[in-house]
């Protein structure tokens, strides 16, 4: 597998707690994933998602709270809407919409989150390489 870069925008509330729980349980992050801690995924703008790809990421995963238990009430719903908007935009400009995904996680679902991240890494690794030579190494 050639080296890929995945940026994970992770909510610092339930989602980050899930990652910590997984870490305590001995799980490790997939090698390609770099974490960007967010106060709330609802703060993520569509512009940031596009610019992250232009900067050299091969895939983006947004990890927010469960939609019916969001720390900031509607943050993860806003994030899902923006992720879906970017998926539509990518389809429109002939890029793979699979490069951007949203995952919702409770603080107790660390193992599930790690599994989904590994699955996402495999999926992105199978996509054609992007030509961007950006800031993300």
């Amino acid at each position, binding site marked *: 597998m050639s080296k890929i870069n995945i940026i994970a925008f992770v909510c610092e509330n339930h989602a980050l707690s899930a990652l910590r729980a997984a870490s305590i349980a001995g799980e490790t992050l997939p090698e390609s994933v770099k974490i960007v801690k967010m106060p709330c995924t609802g703060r993520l*703008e*569509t*512009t940031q998602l*596009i*610019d992250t*790809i*232009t900067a050299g990421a091969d895939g983006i995963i947004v990890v927010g709270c469960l939609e019916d238990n969001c720390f900031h009430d509607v943050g993860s719903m806003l994030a899902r*809407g923006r992720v879906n908007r970017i998926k539509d*935009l990518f389809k*429109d*400009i*002939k*890029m793979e919409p699979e490069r951007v995904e949203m995952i919702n996680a409770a603080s107790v679902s660390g193992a599930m989150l790690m599994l989904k991240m590994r699955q996402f890494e495999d999926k992105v690794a199978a996509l054609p390489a*992007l*030509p*961007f030579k950006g800031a993300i190494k």
Partner: protein
Amino acid sequence: MIIGERKPVSEIEKMLAGKKKILLSGCKTCVAISMAGGEKEVAELASALRLISARDGLDWEIEENVVERQCEKEWVREIEPKILGADCVVSLACGLGCQTIADLYPAKQTYPGLNTSFLGVPEEQGVWSEKCLACGDCIMFETGGICPVSRCAKSMRNGACGGSADGKCEVNLDTDCAWNMIYERLKLQNRLDLITQISAPKDWSKSHSGGRRKIVRKDLLIQPTDRTDMEVKK
């Protein structure tokens, strides 16, 4: 307000073939509220175009700008150096803003980045609905403040068409029947007498059907000319 919707980026991309310096110009008024052409949307389109440029090696130089009201010459003139310095302008304002730039700088190619959709209101976050057709002859004093011209699919003038059921329009079941709403509103206001009155056929010549409209108010003209003889000219 004027409600718009951004064109697909692929459509905008086609307009920009062969260009290098591109100015994206949004508007802080109506289309900013309808989340189609304000500061955020200009930034989003700029990011998308930069992505395409980097992917396809197009070497586009994209500048972002948002004016207060793109339909007014005074505000547009403030960004004249940016307009003149670009190969083309993509307007993320409504059709009025786009034409204001195009008319002020006729030699500059100005493209619409939005489809101007309708005159409407925000209903809730992410939802806008049409409520005025700018028909030029408002009759809402007879209809409880509800416009049947824009809110009835058939623009009925004298009551429901007969096709509505359970308060919903037969053309689109997601839409409330305007005349059912008018009935309920007049009932609430104890003005059901209005619904039994027969209204004369609507004068559509005051709408766009009568050709391009123009309003001249002579009290506001700074240099009166023979135009001052006109109150309203089509």
